[in-house]
């Protein structure tokens, strides 16, 4: 019993070691987003609070925390409060299986990939319930759009991950990263044999997190703010937290699945620069996270039917074909996991 309690305490410490930096990363990411989009618009972005506006995100967080949560009339109160929790819980739980470095992972699950799929598919409950419990038409419309979109793009995402697991021969994320190791550095990673799927995975990830140009669920110009239109104060902050944690999660996942996780892009024979390190993983994830912001400042919003067409008629067929291609690569030995 004592050993069990010790283990539980140790696990709790590890969970805190992941989730506290994650919350801070979300705060800094929102600052970085406003700054980057500002630069792309030839504006300054936030620059008043703290040096270079660095404390802007924290000022916003405290402002939201001290604001009142207004519950709409005739709203389903328990579900109204439950919805943000249901949105944020899977966004954090999925981090349990992300390997940051060789052996640095909270839970080295053998079903890690499936666990990720399970957790990301749970996130949609928060959105649906928020839309329904708010007792507002805009919120319900946003929730319906969002749920249909998330459910559609999940299929493309899942099929893309099937390609990865065919090549890696494992559902364990650490094994998937190790399967991308080899003498040739970045040419050994899965992005090369799975190039179309890699692109689809990240685009589907953008759609799955309801970000621009797939942000019809929020659609400020049509349905105000979609599913969280009735939320204010800390409840809104929790939705915000879930969305940004999911964006960072997708960035890390794309790095782990297709860009070799913590592996170095340079050949192992190049000395220190060729060694794997968590720094590489963070740099890759940062690049993807930056692309999220770049997309938002660049692309106009897709129309709803275009989103559905892209998901069902373009992405899913390509991924299904590529599962076959990946199977052939594996069967004929063109790709050998782990070299």
């Amino acid at each position, binding site marked *: 019993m004592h050993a069990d309690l010790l283990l539980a305490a140790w696990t709790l410490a590890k969970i805190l070691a992941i989730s506290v930096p994650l919350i801070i990363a979300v705060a800094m990411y929102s600052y970085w987003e406003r700054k980057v989009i500002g630069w792309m618009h030839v504006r300054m972005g936030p620059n008043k609070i703290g040096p270079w506006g660095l404390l802007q995100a924290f000022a916003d967080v405290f402002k939201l925390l001290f604001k009142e949560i207004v519950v709409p009339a005739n709203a*389903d109160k328990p579900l109204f409060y439950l919805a943000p929790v249901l949105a944020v819980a899977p966004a954090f739980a999925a981090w349990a299986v992300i390997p940051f470095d060789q052996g640095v992972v909270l839970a080295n699950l*053998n079903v890690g990939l499936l666990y990720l*799929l*399970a957790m990301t598919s749970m996130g*949609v409950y928060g959105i*649906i319930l928020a839309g*329904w419990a708010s007792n507002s038409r805009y919120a319900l419309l946003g929730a319906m759009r969002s749920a249909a979109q998330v*459910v559609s793009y999940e299929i493309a995402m899942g099929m893309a991950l099937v390609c990865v697991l065919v090549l890696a021969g494992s*559902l364990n994320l650490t094994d998937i990263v190790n399967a991308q190791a080899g003498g040739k550095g970045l040419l050994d990673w899965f992005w090369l044999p799975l190039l179309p799927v890699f692109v689809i995975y990240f685009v589907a990830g953008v759609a799955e997190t309801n970000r621009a140009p797939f942000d019809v669920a929020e659609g400020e110009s049509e349905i105000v703010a979609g599913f969280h239109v009735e939320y204010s104060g800390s409840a809104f902050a929790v939705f915000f937290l879930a969305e940004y944690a999911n964006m960072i999660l997708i960035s890390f996942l794309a790095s782990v699945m297709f860009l070799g996780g913590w592996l170095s892009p340079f050949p192992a024979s190049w000395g220190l620069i060729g060694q794997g390190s968590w720094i590489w993983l963070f740099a890759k994830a940062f690049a993807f996270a930056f692309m999220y912001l770049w997309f938002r400042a660049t692309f106009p919003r897709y129309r709803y039917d275009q989103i559905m067409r892209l998901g069902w008629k373009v992405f899913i067929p390509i991924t299904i074909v590529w599962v076959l291609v990946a199977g052939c690569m594996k069967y004929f030995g063109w790709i050998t996991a782990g070299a």
Partner: protein
Amino acid sequence: MTFQLLCFYAFAAVTTLAALGVITLRNSVHAVLCLVLTFFSTAAIWLLAEAEFLAVALVVVYVGAVMVLFLFVVMMLDIKQEPLREGFIRYLPVGIAVAAVMLAEMLALIGVRAMAQVPAPANPAGDSNIAWLGETLFTRFLLPFEIAALILTVGIIAAVALTLRRREGVRHQDPARQVAVDPRTRVRVVKMAAERGQEPAA
């Protein structure tokens, strides 16, 4: 009592309470959410029994997909609460009969298993049963697996065929044609001399 056993009792209690909630709650959306919780805590119990694949598949398939659609349907239906309670007494005997039969079947199953004294099969894969499961599914049980896949595919096609209705006079967009449009056929650029403003009267 070990920590695992404690976890099991906790999850089992949650499962039972949630299952009770499904059939007692008046609000149908709440009942569906209770069903989701039932599935989820059942998956947790399966995880404790080291059936990781089954547990995660339950969450992916039922919690992540089936129940989402279910929730949608229930939200859209707007079921009135009074009519639901009307036939309660009338259908009670049927319900009790079904419950009794199910209970008897379950007890019989547990009794048969206990009498047969089947030893728990050794885990053939060591600590990871997912690799073993995948391999067995695609070698020993390939035919049943493919038949199941075929039946599901047929089911999907049947569902699409049942709901697909062709309507006359529907205008479709063809993105390929939209992209191929030549702007010169759509827009006429008219050149004209700039308007001269009227001089204000002196």
